[in-house]
């Protein structure tokens, strides 16, 4: 933007720009410090709001965020879902992966022992409207509920005969498979560390926690 051909001081020429830059910096930092709390809250609320739906009995106010070391050697972010009386009721795993259109970001709810899936929620997707975007519907998400986590989920086109089979959406097999693949990968990655964590946290009360499911 310095198109002048004067040999004078460029800084002198640009005093207004520098002054404005500093001024704007202050203004922006002011705005940030005023609003950042609220924005953070909004971001968290997005996950916490759906938590009771995905992990039955969870109370968002008591739940907390933590990171575990995944099998792939990278830290993974997840949530401990805590119910009434400070009792843990399950986990909430954010996961993502390639869909048919773009990346799909989902939240997976599992029980404390990571033995069954208790719920699924699609945060972000750009699947084909009218076909693939039905992965956000309740009807599709229900198909994952109570699926076991000890073996990978398999997508089938007919009515499922096995527990670990998920019926695909007609016309959107790839989208359905993508969601199942994301779930499989996330559980394979974080399942073991989570079970360990659960065993450490409440070694004596495992049975009780399981019985609430």
């Amino acid at each position: 933007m310095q198109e002048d051909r004067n040999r004078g001081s460029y800084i002198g020429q640009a005093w207004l720009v520098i002054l404005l830059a500093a001024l704007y910096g202050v203004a922006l930092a002011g705005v940030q410090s005023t609003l950042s709390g609220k924005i953070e809250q909004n971001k968290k609320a997005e996950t916490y709001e759906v938590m009771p739906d995905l992990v039955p009995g969870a109370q968002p106010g008591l739940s907390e965020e933590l990171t575990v070391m995944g099998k792939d050697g990278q830290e993974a972010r997840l949530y401990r879902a805590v119910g009434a009386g400070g009792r843990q009721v399950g986990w909430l795993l954010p996961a993502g992966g390639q869909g048919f259109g773009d990346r799909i970001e989902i939240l997976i709810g599992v029980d404390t022992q990571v033995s069954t899936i208790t719920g699924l929620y699609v945060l972000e997707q750009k699947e084909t409207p009218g076909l693939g975007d039905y992965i956000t519907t309740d009807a599709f998400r229900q198909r994952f509920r109570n699926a076991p986590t000890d073996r990978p989920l398999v997508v089938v086109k007919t009515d499922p005969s096995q527990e670990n089979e998920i019926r695909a959406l007609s016309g959107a097999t790839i989208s359905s498979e993508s969601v199942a693949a994301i779930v499989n990968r996330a559980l394979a990655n974080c399942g073991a560390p989570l079970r360990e964590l659960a065993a450490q946290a409440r070694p004596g009360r495992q049975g009780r926690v399981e019985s609430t499911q």
Partner: protein
Amino acid sequence: METLIGVVLIFISAALINNFVLHYFVGICPFLGVSRRVDTAFGMGCAVTFVISISTMLNWAFTSFILRPGAPLPAWVWRTAGGNPQTQLDLSVLSYIIYIFIIASSVQFVEMYVRKFFPPLYKSFGVFLPLITTNCAILFASLEVFKHMQDPTNLWGLPQALTLALGGGIGFTLAISLMAGIREELDLCDVPRPLQGAGIALIIAGIMAMAFMGFTGVDKGVETALTSLLR
């Protein structure tokens, strides 16, 4: 391996599937304005690819050292100031203003540099350089990179950022050159009066966007193929 597959997917996605122009609608102004002749359009595309790579690289550096949550510079300042280590100093609010500043300055700098040292290059696409400051595609690439620098557990490195920029630039060049080719032919057609100019150009763009929608799902296939190939 994972990184390599990731990079390939980013490239395919940026260049074809989620083409900057036809899917994200960024860079529409030059797409409609500078698409009357194929050689001009191609020159514009090259200039965009060039500038988008440079500015995204610079902006990636600024993002990873200053702007992203938990970046080294604000963390160091906060420590030096004796702040509470529980809280974090976040400068991400400055990102937009810094991005546009860097883009404007780097375009200016590149223009001067190329004019001095590569006069033939300047002759062929120098005129496009100043236009690029207000080209949304450039800023969009930086913003996409910024989006992927939010989560400290999953940061984009320089390869990913640069691939996104290159893919986006190449996708833009492809789209604008195709458009120019069609419009050259269109000059010979009898277009209804009200549609002449921008109207017909937009409708062509719509049809092109439909064609590019055919690429949807390619990345899924490529991912599967690469994964099985590399294992």
